[in-house]
Protein backbone atom coordinates (compact mmCIF):
# COMPACT_ATOMS: atom_id res chain seq x y z
CA UNK A 1 0.00 0.00 0.00
CA UNK A 2 1.27 3.45 -0.86
CA UNK A 3 2.18 5.36 2.27
CA UNK A 4 1.73 9.10 2.50
CA UNK A 5 5.01 10.88 2.97
CA UNK A 6 6.12 14.47 2.94
CA UNK A 7 9.80 13.57 3.02
CA UNK A 8 11.42 15.65 0.35
CA UNK A 9 8.72 18.35 0.45
CA UNK A 10 10.01 21.91 0.08
CA UNK A 11 8.54 22.87 3.46
CA UNK A 12 8.67 20.97 6.76
CA UNK A 13 5.30 19.26 7.25
CA UNK A 14 4.60 18.52 10.91
CA UNK A 15 4.61 14.89 11.95
CA UNK A 16 1.06 15.04 13.30
CA UNK A 17 -0.21 16.25 9.91
CA UNK A 18 1.65 13.57 8.04
CA UNK A 19 0.41 10.87 10.41
CA UNK A 20 -3.21 12.06 10.28
CA UNK A 21 -3.07 12.02 6.49
CA UNK A 22 -1.59 8.51 6.49
CA UNK A 23 -4.43 7.29 8.73
CA UNK A 24 -7.02 8.97 6.51
CA UNK A 25 -5.49 7.41 3.38
CA UNK A 26 -5.55 3.98 4.99
CA UNK A 27 -9.21 4.43 5.96
CA UNK A 28 -9.96 5.55 2.42
CA UNK A 29 -8.74 2.21 1.08
CA UNK A 30 -10.73 0.11 3.57
CA UNK A 31 -14.38 -0.91 3.39
CA UNK A 32 -16.45 1.74 5.10
CA UNK A 33 -19.90 1.74 6.56
CA UNK A 34 -21.90 1.89 3.33
CA UNK A 35 -19.28 1.79 0.58
CA UNK A 36 -16.63 -0.82 -0.17
CA UNK A 37 -12.93 0.04 -0.27
CA UNK A 38 -13.04 0.01 -4.06
CA UNK A 39 -16.03 2.36 -4.09
CA UNK A 40 -14.38 4.71 -1.61
CA UNK A 41 -11.28 4.96 -3.79
CA UNK A 42 -13.53 5.41 -6.85
CA UNK A 43 -15.19 8.35 -5.06
CA UNK A 44 -11.76 9.90 -4.51
CA UNK A 45 -10.86 9.38 -8.17
CA UNK A 46 -14.12 10.96 -9.31
CA UNK A 47 -13.49 13.90 -6.97
CA UNK A 48 -10.16 14.59 -8.64
CA UNK A 49 -11.75 14.16 -12.06
CA UNK A 50 -14.49 16.69 -11.15
CA UNK A 51 -12.03 19.55 -11.24
CA UNK A 52 -11.88 19.24 -15.03
CA UNK A 53 -15.63 18.75 -15.58
CA UNK A 54 -16.88 21.11 -18.29
CA UNK A 55 -20.48 20.80 -17.06
CA UNK A 56 -19.42 21.95 -13.60
CA UNK A 57 -17.56 24.90 -15.10
CA UNK A 58 -20.65 25.86 -17.10
CA UNK A 59 -22.89 25.43 -14.07
CA UNK A 60 -20.65 27.57 -11.87
CA UNK A 61 -21.00 30.39 -14.36
CA UNK A 62 -24.78 29.99 -14.60
CA UNK A 63 -27.15 32.08 -12.52
CA UNK A 64 -29.01 29.00 -11.35
CA UNK A 65 -27.01 25.84 -10.58
CA UNK A 66 -29.98 23.74 -11.64
CA UNK A 67 -30.43 25.25 -15.09
CA UNK A 68 -27.60 23.05 -16.38
CA UNK A 69 -28.92 19.49 -16.64
CA UNK A 70 -26.29 17.79 -18.80
CA UNK A 71 -24.59 14.79 -17.21
CA UNK A 72 -21.18 15.40 -15.70
CA UNK A 73 -17.92 14.40 -17.34
CA UNK A 74 -17.52 11.28 -15.25
CA UNK A 75 -15.13 8.36 -14.95
CA UNK A 76 -18.17 6.07 -15.10
CA UNK A 77 -17.42 3.95 -12.03
CA UNK A 78 -20.25 5.28 -9.86
CA UNK A 79 -24.00 5.85 -10.22
CA UNK A 80 -25.05 9.25 -11.60
CA UNK A 81 -26.49 10.41 -8.27
CA UNK A 82 -23.19 9.79 -6.48
CA UNK A 83 -21.33 11.54 -9.30
CA UNK A 84 -23.62 14.56 -9.00
CA UNK A 85 -22.97 14.76 -5.25
CA UNK A 86 -19.21 14.53 -5.75
CA UNK A 87 -19.09 17.16 -8.49
CA UNK A 88 -21.41 19.66 -6.81
CA UNK A 89 -19.83 19.37 -3.37
CA UNK A 90 -16.37 19.70 -4.89
CA UNK A 91 -17.00 22.60 -7.25
CA UNK A 92 -20.12 24.48 -6.09
CA UNK A 93 -20.79 23.76 -2.40
CA UNK A 94 -22.32 27.17 -1.66
CA UNK A 95 -25.45 26.48 -3.73
CA UNK A 96 -26.48 23.07 -2.41
CA UNK A 97 -30.14 23.00 -1.40
CA UNK A 98 -32.45 20.75 0.56
CA UNK A 99 -34.53 20.19 -2.56
CA UNK A 100 -31.46 18.94 -4.43
CA UNK A 101 -30.55 16.68 -1.49
CA UNK A 102 -34.06 15.21 -1.47
CA UNK A 103 -33.82 14.51 -5.21
CA UNK A 104 -30.54 12.70 -4.58
CA UNK A 105 -32.20 10.46 -1.98
CA UNK A 106 -35.20 9.93 -4.26
CA UNK A 107 -32.82 8.66 -6.95
CA UNK A 108 -31.84 5.73 -4.71
CA UNK A 109 -28.83 6.85 -2.67
CA UNK A 110 -29.47 6.16 1.03
CA UNK A 111 -28.88 8.76 3.71
CA UNK A 112 -26.02 6.68 5.09
CA UNK A 113 -24.39 6.40 1.68
CA UNK A 114 -24.78 10.15 1.22
CA UNK A 115 -23.17 11.00 4.57
CA UNK A 116 -20.25 8.65 4.01
CA UNK A 117 -19.87 10.04 0.48
CA UNK A 118 -19.57 13.55 1.95
CA UNK A 119 -17.04 12.26 4.46
CA UNK A 120 -14.83 10.74 1.76
CA UNK A 121 -15.11 13.78 -0.50
CA UNK A 122 -14.11 16.30 2.16
CA UNK A 123 -11.30 14.12 3.54
CA UNK A 124 -9.59 13.68 0.19
CA UNK A 125 -10.30 17.24 -0.94
CA UNK A 126 -8.78 18.73 2.21
CA UNK A 127 -5.60 16.67 1.88
CA UNK A 128 -5.32 17.59 -1.81
CA UNK A 129 -5.76 21.29 -0.98
CA UNK A 130 -3.10 21.02 1.70
CA UNK A 131 -0.72 19.45 -0.80
CA UNK A 132 -1.28 22.31 -3.20
CA UNK A 133 -0.67 24.77 -0.39
CA UNK A 134 2.74 23.30 0.41
CA UNK A 135 3.61 22.69 -3.24
CA UNK A 136 3.48 18.88 -3.11
CA UNK A 137 1.90 16.71 -5.80
CA UNK A 138 -1.40 15.04 -4.76
CA UNK A 139 -0.73 11.65 -3.20
CA UNK A 140 -1.42 8.61 -5.38
CA UNK A 141 -4.71 7.01 -4.40
CA UNK A 142 -4.32 3.87 -2.31
CA UNK A 143 -5.07 0.35 -3.48
CA UNK A 144 -8.51 -0.65 -2.19
CA UNK A 145 -8.69 -3.38 0.43
CA UNK A 146 -11.10 -6.27 0.34
CA UNK A 147 -13.98 -6.62 2.74
CA UNK A 148 -17.63 -5.75 3.23
CA UNK A 149 -19.07 -2.45 4.36
CA UNK A 150 -20.29 -2.74 7.96
CA UNK A 151 -23.77 -1.26 7.43
CA UNK A 152 -23.62 0.17 10.95
CA UNK A 153 -26.24 2.77 11.87
CA UNK A 154 -26.10 4.43 15.31
CA UNK A 155 -29.30 3.52 17.16
CA UNK A 156 -29.67 7.09 18.44
CA UNK A 157 -29.41 8.80 15.04
CA UNK A 158 -32.52 10.75 14.09
CA UNK A 159 -33.64 13.64 11.97
CA UNK A 160 -33.64 16.88 13.94
CA UNK A 161 -32.26 20.17 12.64
CA UNK A 162 -30.35 19.12 9.50
CA UNK A 163 -31.15 17.42 6.21
CA UNK A 164 -29.55 14.18 7.41
CA UNK A 165 -30.15 12.18 10.59
CA UNK A 166 -27.57 12.86 13.28
CA UNK A 167 -26.72 11.47 16.69
CA UNK A 168 -28.23 13.88 19.23
CA UNK A 169 -25.87 16.03 21.25
CA UNK A 170 -26.54 13.86 24.32
CA UNK A 171 -26.35 10.68 22.27
CA UNK A 172 -22.56 10.23 22.28
CA UNK A 173 -22.76 7.17 24.50
CA UNK A 174 -22.06 3.47 24.07
CA UNK A 175 -20.38 2.82 20.73
CA UNK A 176 -20.50 6.56 19.99
CA UNK A 177 -18.99 7.64 23.33
CA UNK A 178 -15.72 8.67 21.75
CA UNK A 179 -17.28 11.05 19.22
CA UNK A 180 -17.70 14.00 21.59
CA UNK A 181 -18.36 14.76 25.25
CA UNK A 182 -22.03 13.91 25.56
CA UNK A 183 -24.21 17.00 25.69
CA UNK A 184 -21.49 19.35 24.51
CA UNK A 185 -20.85 19.61 20.83
CA UNK A 186 -21.56 21.71 17.76
CA UNK A 187 -23.76 20.86 14.81
CA UNK A 188 -20.74 20.73 12.51
CA UNK A 189 -19.27 17.90 14.61
CA UNK A 190 -22.62 16.06 14.68
CA UNK A 191 -23.20 16.61 10.96
CA UNK A 192 -21.65 13.32 9.75
CA UNK A 193 -22.53 11.27 12.86
CA UNK A 194 -24.92 8.99 10.94
CA UNK A 195 -21.59 7.41 9.92
CA UNK A 196 -19.53 7.68 13.13
CA UNK A 197 -16.26 6.71 11.47
CA UNK A 198 -16.49 9.87 9.37
CA UNK A 199 -16.68 11.94 12.56
CA UNK A 200 -13.61 10.11 13.86
CA UNK A 201 -11.72 10.96 10.67
CA UNK A 202 -12.94 14.56 10.88
CA UNK A 203 -11.68 14.92 14.46
CA UNK A 204 -8.35 13.31 13.63
CA UNK A 205 -7.73 15.61 10.68
CA UNK A 206 -9.16 18.68 12.41
CA UNK A 207 -6.84 18.22 15.37
CA UNK A 208 -3.79 18.32 13.09
CA UNK A 209 -5.01 20.91 10.57
CA UNK A 210 -6.72 23.31 12.94
CA UNK A 211 -7.12 22.87 16.70
CA UNK A 212 -7.91 19.71 18.71
CA UNK A 213 -11.47 19.68 20.07
CA UNK A 214 -10.31 19.80 23.68
CA UNK A 215 -8.41 23.05 23.03
CA UNK A 216 -11.14 24.80 21.06
CA UNK A 217 -12.10 27.12 23.93
CA UNK A 218 -8.46 28.06 24.60
CA UNK A 219 -7.92 31.37 22.82
CA UNK A 220 -4.18 30.86 23.17
CA UNK A 221 -4.18 27.57 21.24
CA UNK A 222 -1.99 27.83 18.16
CA UNK A 223 1.25 26.65 16.63
CA UNK A 224 3.41 28.82 14.36
CA UNK A 225 0.34 30.96 13.75
CA UNK A 226 -1.44 32.42 16.77
CA UNK A 227 -5.16 31.91 17.32
CA UNK A 228 -6.14 35.20 15.76
CA UNK A 229 -4.20 34.43 12.62
CA UNK A 230 -5.76 30.96 12.47
CA UNK A 231 -9.27 32.37 12.83
CA UNK A 232 -8.60 35.06 10.24
CA UNK A 233 -7.68 32.39 7.69
CA UNK A 234 -10.66 30.23 8.71
CA UNK A 235 -13.03 33.18 8.38
CA UNK A 236 -11.61 34.13 5.01
CA UNK A 237 -12.17 30.65 3.56
CA UNK A 238 -15.69 30.61 4.95
CA UNK A 239 -16.42 33.99 3.36
CA UNK A 240 -14.94 32.97 0.00
CA UNK A 241 -17.10 29.84 0.03
CA UNK A 242 -20.13 31.85 1.26
CA UNK A 243 -20.71 29.43 4.08
CA UNK A 244 -23.14 30.96 6.56
CA UNK A 245 -22.36 28.43 9.30
Amino acid sequence: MEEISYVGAAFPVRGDLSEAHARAWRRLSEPGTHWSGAERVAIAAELRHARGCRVCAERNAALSPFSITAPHDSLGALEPAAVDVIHRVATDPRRLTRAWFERILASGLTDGQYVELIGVIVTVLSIDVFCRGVDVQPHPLPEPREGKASGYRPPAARLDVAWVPMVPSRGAVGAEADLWTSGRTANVVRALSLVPDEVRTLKDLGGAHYIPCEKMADLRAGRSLDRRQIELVAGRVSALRECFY
Partner: protein
Amino acid sequence: MEGEAAANASGVRHADALIALADALVGDDDAAMGKARGRLLQAVGACGLVDAAAVVSNFERMVRIADATGIPLDAPLSVLAGELGKELGLLRYASAANTPAPGTVARLIGALFRPLAHGTLRLARLKGRARGGTSPLD
Protein backbone atom coordinates in the same frame (compact mmCIF):
# COMPACT_ATOMS: atom_id res chain seq x y z
CA MET B 1 -13.19 48.85 3.95
CA GLU B 2 -11.98 45.89 1.99
CA GLY B 3 -8.84 44.24 0.73
CA GLU B 4 -5.38 44.95 2.09
CA ALA B 5 -6.50 48.08 3.94
CA ALA B 6 -9.01 46.03 5.91
CA ALA B 7 -6.46 43.28 6.48
CA ASN B 8 -3.89 45.71 7.83
CA ALA B 9 -6.45 47.48 10.02
CA SER B 10 -7.46 44.20 11.65
CA GLY B 11 -4.43 44.20 13.92
CA VAL B 12 -3.70 40.57 13.06
CA ARG B 13 -0.03 40.13 12.23
CA HIS B 14 0.62 39.49 8.54
CA ALA B 15 -3.11 39.54 7.83
CA ASP B 16 -2.62 40.65 4.22
CA ALA B 17 -0.24 37.78 3.39
CA LEU B 18 -2.47 35.24 5.17
CA ILE B 19 -5.53 36.41 3.27
CA ALA B 20 -3.62 36.32 -0.01
CA LEU B 21 -2.71 32.69 0.63
CA ALA B 22 -6.28 31.77 1.51
CA ASP B 23 -7.57 33.48 -1.63
CA ALA B 24 -5.02 31.76 -3.85
CA LEU B 25 -5.52 28.31 -2.34
CA VAL B 26 -9.31 28.51 -2.65
CA GLY B 27 -8.88 29.77 -6.22
CA ASP B 28 -7.35 27.88 -9.12
CA ASP B 29 -4.70 30.26 -10.42
CA ASP B 30 -1.35 28.48 -10.00
CA ALA B 31 0.66 31.62 -10.66
CA ALA B 32 -1.22 33.47 -7.91
CA MET B 33 -0.69 30.45 -5.65
CA GLY B 34 3.06 30.56 -6.13
CA LYS B 35 3.19 34.28 -5.50
CA ALA B 36 1.04 34.04 -2.34
CA ARG B 37 3.10 31.15 -1.04
CA GLY B 38 6.32 33.10 -1.47
CA ARG B 39 4.87 36.18 0.15
CA LEU B 40 3.60 34.25 3.20
CA LEU B 41 6.88 32.37 3.49
CA GLN B 42 8.68 35.72 3.80
CA ALA B 43 6.20 36.91 6.41
CA VAL B 44 5.77 33.89 8.73
CA GLY B 45 8.38 31.34 7.68
CA ALA B 46 8.04 27.76 6.49
CA CYS B 47 6.24 26.42 9.57
CA GLY B 48 3.75 29.28 9.42
CA LEU B 49 3.12 28.58 5.74
CA VAL B 50 2.44 24.91 6.49
CA ASP B 51 0.06 25.88 9.31
CA ALA B 52 -1.77 28.34 7.06
CA ALA B 53 -2.17 25.72 4.32
CA ALA B 54 -3.47 23.32 6.97
CA VAL B 55 -6.09 25.82 8.17
CA VAL B 56 -7.26 26.69 4.65
CA SER B 57 -7.61 23.02 3.76
CA ASN B 58 -9.39 22.33 7.05
CA PHE B 59 -12.02 24.91 6.29
CA GLU B 60 -12.37 23.77 2.69
CA ARG B 61 -13.46 20.56 4.40
CA MET B 62 -15.67 22.12 7.05
CA VAL B 63 -17.66 24.46 4.81
CA ARG B 64 -18.61 21.53 2.60
CA ILE B 65 -19.72 19.45 5.58
CA ALA B 66 -21.94 22.29 6.74
CA ASP B 67 -23.39 23.09 3.33
CA ALA B 68 -23.89 19.48 2.24
CA THR B 69 -25.77 18.48 5.40
CA GLY B 70 -27.86 21.62 5.85
CA ILE B 71 -26.92 22.13 9.48
CA PRO B 72 -28.15 25.37 11.03
CA LEU B 73 -26.01 27.63 13.18
CA ASP B 74 -26.07 26.27 16.74
CA ALA B 75 -28.91 27.86 18.68
CA PRO B 76 -26.88 29.61 21.43
CA LEU B 77 -24.58 31.17 18.83
CA SER B 78 -27.49 32.18 16.65
CA VAL B 79 -29.13 33.91 19.61
CA LEU B 80 -25.95 35.70 20.68
CA ALA B 81 -25.07 36.72 17.13
CA GLY B 82 -28.31 38.62 16.80
CA GLU B 83 -28.27 40.89 13.77
CA LEU B 84 -24.58 40.31 13.07
CA GLY B 85 -25.32 38.09 10.09
CA LYS B 86 -27.41 40.85 8.55
CA GLU B 87 -24.83 43.55 9.33
CA LEU B 88 -22.07 41.53 7.70
CA GLY B 89 -24.17 40.76 4.65
CA LEU B 90 -24.17 37.04 5.35
CA LEU B 91 -27.90 36.63 4.81
CA ARG B 92 -27.33 36.80 1.06
CA TYR B 93 -25.51 33.46 1.25
CA ALA B 94 -27.69 30.62 -0.02
CA SER B 95 -26.72 28.55 3.02
CA ALA B 96 -28.24 31.17 5.33
CA ALA B 97 -31.54 29.47 4.50
CA ASN B 98 -30.45 26.54 6.69
CA THR B 99 -30.55 28.69 9.84
CA PRO B 100 -34.05 29.88 10.76
CA ALA B 101 -34.29 33.43 12.08
CA PRO B 102 -34.53 33.44 15.88
CA GLY B 103 -38.00 34.02 17.28
CA THR B 104 -39.01 36.96 19.46
CA VAL B 105 -38.08 35.31 22.76
CA ALA B 106 -34.70 34.21 21.42
CA ARG B 107 -34.02 37.73 20.14
CA LEU B 108 -34.83 39.18 23.56
CA ILE B 109 -32.56 36.68 25.28
CA GLY B 110 -29.79 37.52 22.82
CA ALA B 111 -30.19 41.24 23.45
CA LEU B 112 -29.94 40.55 27.18
CA PHE B 113 -26.85 38.34 27.03
CA ARG B 114 -24.81 40.09 24.34
CA PRO B 115 -23.53 42.79 26.74
CA LEU B 116 -22.55 40.00 29.16
CA ALA B 117 -20.63 38.24 26.42
CA HIS B 118 -18.80 41.48 25.57
CA GLY B 119 -18.03 41.98 29.27
CA THR B 120 -16.67 38.45 29.61
CA LEU B 121 -14.34 38.92 26.66
CA ARG B 122 -13.17 42.25 28.07
CA LEU B 123 -12.46 40.60 31.42
CA ALA B 124 -10.48 37.83 29.71
CA ARG B 125 -8.40 40.50 27.96
CA LEU B 126 -7.70 42.34 31.23
CA LYS B 127 -6.82 39.13 33.05
CA GLY B 128 -4.41 38.20 30.30
CA ARG B 129 -2.65 41.54 30.59
CA ALA B 130 -2.57 41.31 34.40
CA ARG B 131 -0.78 37.97 34.13
CA GLY B 132 1.98 39.82 32.40
CA GLY B 133 1.44 38.56 28.89
CA THR B 134 -0.61 39.82 26.05
CA SER B 135 -4.11 38.61 25.84
CA PRO B 136 -4.97 36.67 22.70
CA LEU B 137 -7.72 39.23 22.34
CA ASP B 138 -5.25 42.14 21.98
